[in-house]
């Protein structure tokens, strides 16, 4: 069998939510001044976003991650990408991770699309000392033409998505993390970029793919994980998982 590439063991993540807490020093000060006793006694609620999640990904696997909004898909991906540190548990992941959580972000909106792409490339391919060629090829692929030399702030959502998707799919990585990144592109480009992305994923170590589209999951993934309220609700074959998910969702709908 192929080697284990990513290992997530007993990962939990929780944080304090304090709905009444002020977000300014002024609020905190006036709260205390008004009622110091109540203020100091009030208990904080701990919100558990991830609850003891464990799974393993082997080289060659492309794992789909689905679940309702707010069950912790993005949080889990951010933990794996090394952005969040889990409250407990351990993650063993390769260092060459390409993680993208939004396709509509330029760093300097007043600079052109081309300049933003160059700048972004140093964050998307941190291990690449010279990203010039990669960027040129990606920009060609994006077919943005004369728009490339216009300020990024004039771009529509779809154009931003084209730029970013072309860029992140320019080179394979040990582990890809794609969090709902196909949503913004138009139909024609979605077809084109899906092909390129699939090619790159095939050349890459493994992938985590978050999506709400069953079609895309079928096309990309070799395995499916369903997250439910911060836990793993299902882990197995794609078709079984999609059926399981449909059944559960309709149950929840009829119960409520």
């Amino acid at each position: 069998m192929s080697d284990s590439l990513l290992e997530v063991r007993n990962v939990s993540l929780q944080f304090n939510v304090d709905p009444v807490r002020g977000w300014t020093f002024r609020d905190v000060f006036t709260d205390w001044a008004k009622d110091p006793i109540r203020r100091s006694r009030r208990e904080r609620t701990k919100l558990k976003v991830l609850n003891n999640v464990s799974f393993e990904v082997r080289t060659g696997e492309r794992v789909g991650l689905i679940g309702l909004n707010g069950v912790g898909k993005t949080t889990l991906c951010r933990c794996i990408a090394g952005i969040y540190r889990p409250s407990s548990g351990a993650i063993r992941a390769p260092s060459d991770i390409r993680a993208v959580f939004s396709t509509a972000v330029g760093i300097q909106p007043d600079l052109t699309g081309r300049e933003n792409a160059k700048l972004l490339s140093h964050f998307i391919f941190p291990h690449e000392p010279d990203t010039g060629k990669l960027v040129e090829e990606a920009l060609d692929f994006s077919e943005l033409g004369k728009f490339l030399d216009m300020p990024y702030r004039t771009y529509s959502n779809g154009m931003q998505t084209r730029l970013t998707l072309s860029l992140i799919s320019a080179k394979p990585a040990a582990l890809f993390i794609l969090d709902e990144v196909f949503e913004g592109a138009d139909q024609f480009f979605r077809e084109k970029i899906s092909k390129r992305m699939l090619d790159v994923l095939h050349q890459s170590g493994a992938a985590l793919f978050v999506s709400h589209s069953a079609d895309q999951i079928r096309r990309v993934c070799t395995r499916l994980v369903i997250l439910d309220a911060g836990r793993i609700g299902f882990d197995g074959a794609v078709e079984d998982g999609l059926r399981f998910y449909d059944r559960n969702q309709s149950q929840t709908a009829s119960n409520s």
Partner: protein
Amino acid sequence: MIFWRQVRELTIASLKSRYRKTVAGFLWVILNPLMQYSVQAMVFGSFLRINIERYPIFLLSGLLPWIFMTSTLEMSCSLLVTSRDFLKAYRVSGLVLFFSQVLDNLINFMAAFLTVLIPLTILGHVPWAGLLFVPLAMIPLALFAAGTAVLLGTTHVFFRDTRFILQFVLSISYFVTPIFYGIQLVPEQLRWVIYLNPLYALILPFRDALYLEDYNAFFGHWLVAMGIGTTAAVAGWTFWKARRTAVYLHV
């Protein structure tokens, strides 16, 4: 390596963007300190007649480092919050943003400093040897600015009025730090207030090098400043390490 490459690219892009937006935008970061400098040189030197020899160079040695520090802190304070989309979209260390902001201001400082230097050279006020010590004096100041910037920027994520408190504190600090006046003007029994002020300790090496031309005093003062700068940098680093996940969750 990766870290510094990202810092460099980010700084170049932000300088480019400022230059492109309006030529005035670029001029502003140099004009702003120049205006502040000339107005104060006129008001305190010619109107109020603070009795200090070679007042223009005295003021330069205090005011420009001060402007470097305050503008770095003011720009860094809301940095994480304004870059939230970028921080949430990719795997980026927030520290890259802070370092790039410090570097950006360092370049502006040098540009403004050189611009003031030209007329002063013509007037024959500039101690050439002292100029060589300026980069050395910049080290503790930049360390302090970076460390404090991280502390403030991180705090701002949780308390969104940190920026206003900072502005308030800085405008007061300007008057209790001997920048446009000398410490001799402060009554002896009150001088401890000044000596407790870390900001003054950071300015002192500049004054030794550019105004007093006292290079023996420079090294003593420089070591103290290094102590303060390093402490701030370590504090910023530690605070960031501890609050990192919370920052990304709450930003």
